[in-house]
């Protein structure tokens, strides 16, 4: 699986503040879902702003398809055509009078024809399941709806990589489920996704790859099962192992789950394991 976006030795400090990025290395693999896990205040948003060229590092490089991305006007514009970003607070992104108008903003900036923009807006709204909100003004939407509109605004530009800052923050469980279903739909279209979160259970449920981020550096990166099973690395990042992963490991250790069977990733998988345990108990009696 090829690397589409790579950060090498990034250093960055906010004026008057400590070092937000301290020699950070990160790779985003094409067609994969990467969770960047870190505690609150670890600098995850700063990292995303580097990955889409909004912030320039004091030292280090960001490579897009192996080539160093430029920080000039044209370089940044080309970069943002390929790397979409959805901010944590949707109100920071929504500015237009209606949902459809807001979603049309990005595609119009790509210089597309009006017919193509209308088509893309329709597709993005359908993909995020918010077609019925097309003419609503942003201030008449719930927080979860605003989040999906903000994502639709980036999706309509059809970036190669979509960066999402804390996509589940502030959402109730149903809102999170809706959002993940919509993102699953995008992934089906071959999009590469990278998102920041401090929710290890979300990362385990949904990510292919995981990067642990603390003190301005990625201390561990790899496939989700390997990284999230590394207790020492998780402790160093002020995180804990996901519940379902621990449940699966326990099931393996007591012979309830064979070594070649996958660990439970969703609640339904965990419940199925409990059913299996119950059946085994019955058969032993």
């Amino acid at each position, binding site marked *: 699986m090829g690397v589409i976006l790579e950060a090498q030795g990034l250093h960055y400090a906010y004026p008057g503040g400590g070092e937000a990025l301290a020699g950070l290395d990160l790779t985003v693999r094409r067609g994969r879902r990467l969770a960047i896990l870190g505690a609150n205040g670890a600098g995850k948003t700063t990292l995303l702003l580097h990955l889409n060229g909004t912030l320039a590092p004091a030292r280090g490089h960001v490579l897009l398809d192996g080539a160093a991305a430029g920080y000039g006007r044209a370089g940044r514009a080309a970069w943002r055509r390929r790397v979409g970003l959805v901010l944590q607070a949707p109100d*920071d992104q929504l500015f237009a009078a209606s949902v459809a108008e807001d979603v049309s903003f990005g595609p119009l900036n790509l210089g597309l024809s009006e017919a193509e923009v209308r088509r893309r807006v329709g597709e993005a709204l359908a993909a995020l399941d918010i077609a019925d909100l097309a003419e609503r003004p942003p201030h008449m939407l719930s927080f979860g709806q605003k989040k999906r509109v903000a994502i639709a605004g*980036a999706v309509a530009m059809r970036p190669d990589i979509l960066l999402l800052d804390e996509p589940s923050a502030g959402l109730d469980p149903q809102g999170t489920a809706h959002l993940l279903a919509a993102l699953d739909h995008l992934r089906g279209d071959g999009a590469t996704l990278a998102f920041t979160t401090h929710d290890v259970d979300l990362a385990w449920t949904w990510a292919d790859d995981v990067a642990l981020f603390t003190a301005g550096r990625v201390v561990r990166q790899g496939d989700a099962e390997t990284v999230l099973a590394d207790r020492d690395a998780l402790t160093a990042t002020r995180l804990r192992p996901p519940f379902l992963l621990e449940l699966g490991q326990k099931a393996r250790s007591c012979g309830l789950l064979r070594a070649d069977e996958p660990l439970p990733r969703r609640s339904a998988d965990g419940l199925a394991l409990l059913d299996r345990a119950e059946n085994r108990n019955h058969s032993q009696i």
Partner: protein
Amino acid sequence: MILADRLAYASRWRRRPLAEKSLLSAGLLALALALPPVPGGALVLGTATALALAAGTPASAWIRLMAAPAAFVASGSLALLAEMDAAGLHLAADHGRQAGLVALRALAAIAALLLLAATTPTPDLIQGLRRLGVPAELTELALSIYRFIFVLQDTAAAMHAGQAARLGTDGWRRRVRSAGMLAASLLPRALDRAHRQETGLAARCFDGSLRTLSPLRPASPAGLIRVAVLLALLAGAGTWA
């Protein structure tokens, strides 16, 4: 949310072409100003009210919408109601007829404008101005301000709730102090939010222009003719009477 805007979004006429609604409102306004207040003003006031109700505006909301400008008109008409001479302050010689006519004309003009406001969301009006050739810089600024009003309103409401929960609004001294602190902290928050919005726009290739695609709602000749006929009938009735 601003009452007129809330009504406009819920209005049955919301998706009617802006050109038809603008022609109707401007026509009614012109008639309110040009026709004699009796019966012209009364006809315009009655027609605008009937149309607003037909568009789905609840009567109570229409009255609330009219209340503030009506109070302004009433206070202005008071000057015509009274006269002052050597004998002192007393009722005008025409027993307030002039004050009543001025108030009726003003209320008719206000109703004509509020009919548009209660059936057309502000962004649609701004889009209309853009189509009329108002510079994009002005319309984009107006749209940004419009959007920001609601964002800041939410922020201010949350801050006010936080102050109230800590007894910051008990007694007028505390209320004044809390209101001052709220206003003072709203500005830096607004600037911070504006900065983050700039980042969000930049992520979508913002190039200095806030272009968006608005829904297509072309005016139909039949609709425009219907409006013109209604205005002509009103003009005829107002003049003939």
